[in-house]
């Protein structure tokens, strides 16, 4: 029954000083000689306290090997660490569990030196065996880890070898651009806890949400304390964490971190405003404005980080295999396949209205898939032309489209042009976009239906049955590098959504995008890759397989009392430096 709040009941601690050994496991361990700790450069803060944050949904698992959903990732991201990490602020890779790494001249071998003397959150030392074991698990086909797809280059998995207790070598089958970025988010697992489950083929079921905290351990700044279904997850400090502050005191600053389950954005705003939660991210511009209005009086600090990596786009169904039941679809596809038609649609869309009405000015109109946030990779030569109904009509006229006297657009074969846009019913912003597009296209004589549908049903149509005409979707990016988007642009990619499941490109420009993307993957020099990817962007802007619309700004906030609050435009926006966060 003794639940002690550190801040409030310090005097009780004094009384119980004799029993201090009982708490020794929970207090941060002093740094031992020979332990290769990393030193945080952030401002030194105050130890103690708790940070709470709301999650949109409950975690589905605590298992970093099998997780697929955002909430689970948000939590397990605090519990585990990776070898090389992409610093969310600088967007560059930095050593994490690896002290350093070397790349061989041919770019095929990565030799990684691990930190000495660091321990998992249960006190068991970490070494190369854990790394080898972890990659064995991720690469095992039977485990079905989503991370496997990234670690398999050209159908050949990465080979992992232990060189000595603190050195591991990774061998690639072919040169792979920015391969060190692959290691980000690959959590290193404790072999001593999971080896048995793995041998029994039960790794997928271990560490599920009903697992006991004592069965789990990780190398992240926190460890699991308690999970109350329907209410919250509480994390406590990992007393063995491998990072210290400038004064050589072991991080994290926070004693605890609480994730509350608050299903809707609106409810999250209410709880943030009433002081129940300390930080907030992923909010709409409307709510941001509301919070910004009284940030002074409520002691809040709201930040508009500018454009992120998410891009929203409209696309047409160009699949060559469509269901027979959708009998009108094939005829409509004749229109959709014309580049001129897509260009006219793009020219008629009022992207500024989307920015103004949907994002209340906190967003950027897009011409390609690369947002302005991605300064490194963006092709600045492509400029967005202003909306022009006349230009759109010109393009159509030249492509032999005509108009009925009442203004209805007729295709070259003489049938009226109309189509349905699907949007996600749970995403009010994308539905609003579709509604704006609907109104815009009326001006060039196209009748558009907007059908907000449940997100899963929508995806089912796009990915499985191909029974749709057009849809508005968004793709985000965890990274600025083009590699994670390979499967969007290569011809047989699983996210090549306008034309799925085909191996042969239907048009020359699709073939070119395909080969450019594959080429950049094995090109090692950044400048050369940039040239290739610039061309991809140009092809996308010209041929519009995805008609890119807009990118929302990343809007976040925290209470003033949260120290070292340093949000990033990369996911996870506010918690990436959770070990450095502290309560003033």
């Amino acid at each position: 029954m003794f639940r002690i709040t550190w801040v409030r009941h310090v005097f009780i601690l004094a009384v119980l000083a004799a029993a201090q050994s009982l708490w020794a496991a929970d207090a941060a361990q002093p740094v031992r000689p020979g332990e290769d700790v990393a030193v945080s450069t952030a401002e030194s803060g105050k130890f103690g306290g708790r940070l709470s944050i709301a999650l949109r949904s409950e975690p589905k698992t605590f298992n970093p090997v099998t997780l697929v959903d955002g909430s689970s990732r948000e939590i397990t991201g605090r519990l585990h660490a990776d070898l090389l990490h992409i610093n969310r602020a600088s967007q560059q890779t930095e050593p994490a569990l690896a002290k350093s790494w070397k790349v061989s001249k041919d770019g095929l071998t990565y030799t990684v030196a691990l930190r000495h003397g660091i321990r998992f959150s249960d006190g068991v030392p970490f070494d190369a065996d854990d790394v080898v074991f972890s990659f064995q698990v991720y690469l095992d086909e039977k485990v079905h880890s989503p991370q496997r797809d990234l670690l398999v280059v050209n159908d050949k998995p990465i080979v992992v070898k232990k060189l000595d207790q603190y050195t591991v070598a990774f061998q690639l089958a072919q040169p792979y651009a920015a391969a060190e970025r692959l290691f980000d988010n690959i959590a290193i697992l404790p072999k001593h806890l999971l080896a048995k489950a793995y041998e029994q083929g039960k790794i997928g079921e271990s560490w599920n949400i009903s697992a006991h905290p004592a069965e789990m351990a990780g190398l992240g700044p926190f460890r699991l304390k308690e999970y109350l279904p329907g209410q919250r997850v509480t994390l406590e400090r990992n007393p063995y964490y491998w990072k210290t502050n400038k004064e050589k005191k072991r991080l994290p600053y926070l004693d605890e971190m609480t994730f509350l389950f608050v299903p809707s954005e609106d409810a999250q705003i209410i709880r943030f405003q009433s002081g129940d939660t300390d930080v907030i991210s992923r909010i709409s511009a409307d709510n941001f404005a509301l919070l910004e209005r009284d940030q002074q009086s409520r002691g809040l600090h709201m930040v508009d980080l500018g454009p992120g990596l998410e891009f929203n786009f409209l696309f047409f169904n160009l699949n060559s295999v469509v269901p027979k039941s959708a009998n009108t679809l094939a005829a409509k596809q004749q229109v959709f396949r014309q580049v001129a038609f897509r260009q006219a649609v793009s020219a008629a869309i009022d992207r500024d209205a989307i920015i103004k009405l949907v994002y209340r000015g906190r967003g950027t109109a897009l011409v390609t898939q690369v947002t302005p946030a991605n300064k490194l990779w963006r092709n600045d030569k492509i400029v967005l032309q202003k909306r022009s109904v006349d230009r759109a009509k010109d393009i159509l006229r030249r492509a032999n489209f005509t108009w009925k006297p009442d203004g209805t657009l007729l295709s070259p074969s003489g049938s009226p042009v109309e189509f349905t846009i699907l949007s996600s019913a749970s995403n009010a912003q994308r539905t609003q976009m579709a509604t704006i597009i609907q109104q815009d296209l009326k001006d060039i004589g196209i009748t558009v239906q907007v059908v907000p549908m449940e997100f899963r049903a929508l995806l089912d149509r796009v990915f499985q049955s191909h029974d749709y005409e057009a849809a508005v979707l968004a793709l985000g990016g965890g990274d600025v590098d083009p590699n994670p988007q390979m499967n969007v642009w290569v011809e047989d990619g699983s996210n090549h959504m306008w034309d799925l499941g085909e191996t042969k490109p239907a048009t020359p420009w699709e073939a070119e995008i395909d080969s450019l993307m594959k080429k950049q993957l094995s090109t090692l020099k950044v400048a050369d890759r940039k040239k290739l990817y610039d061309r991809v962007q140009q092809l996308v802007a010209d041929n519009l397989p995805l008609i890119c619309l807009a990118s929302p700004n990343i809007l976040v906030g925290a209470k003033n009392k949260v120290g070292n609050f340093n949000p990033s435009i990369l996911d996870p926006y506010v918690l990436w430096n959770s070990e450095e966060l502290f309560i003033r």
Partner: protein
Amino acid sequence: MKLTLPLGLLTLIGIHLLFLFCGYIAPYDEAQQDRMAAFAPPTKVHLARSYPYIYVCAWNAHETDSGYDEDCSQKFAVHLFVNGGDSHLFGVASPGRISLFGTDGLGRDQFSRFLFGARLSLFAGILATFLALLLGTLIGMTAGFYGSFVDSTLMRFAELFLALPWIYLLLAVRAFLPLHLSPIQTFFLLVVIIGAIGWARPARLVRGIVLSGKERNFVLAAKNLGASNGYILRRHILPQVYGVVLAQAALLVPQYVLAEITLSFLGLGVGEPAASLGNLLGELQQYHVISSYWWMFLPGIALLLIFFSYFVMANALQRRLKFIAV
């Protein structure tokens, strides 16, 4: 008291005509956006002296403030019986816009959306009621008239539908049907769902009446005189059912309107850009809307009028029915 029924009926007819001709009465189309005036409060209508004319000022959006200011440099008269392209009951000349209930996030006129939305919700309710009563009467009469095996099968089936809280069933049924539909199709789909779920209760009522009705002397007499089943059902049983069905209708319509509102409110009803009362109320679930834009409540308040007239009607009908029965 005698006047309640005809008065209620008149009000009800009036309301329905209002919504039936919403295309004329509403100054704008439900989907028409004014991108310069998102979330504008209701237009202030100024009276110039005692003239029957009313003047209105154009709105100016401020970059700094979320509010709107009146631009008093130019006045726009509100005209009745506008005839320009489409004809409307009232309207203002072009750059000016009159929105009696304010506008929503896309700058659409809430008053027009209320009228169109009420039309959709009301007629969904009425059609669903019609369907439910039709099914209910048919099934109830069959069950009551034929009795025995037919009766028990049909009534067990009815109980299956009554065994579920309607809102749960509504959600479940809506979930399995395709969502990829135009607003018109969704509308009819909702009607069918609500009606198809609702037949059980009227069926039980009708069955009861038929059961007692067929034992009445004149029915028995007709039977003995060799009247066919169809004849008896049509000529003797059906008239006894009418009153009950009518009273049920007045009760069910608001209930089914509410069902449509609930589904749309939860995001499972008619989609953008069509308006429905549920959609309009659903906007209020957004925190920034409910805390900043009070006029978004106006459709909800106006909706009470509809429910009130149905309530009066149902009460009067029931009283009358009791009177006849006594």
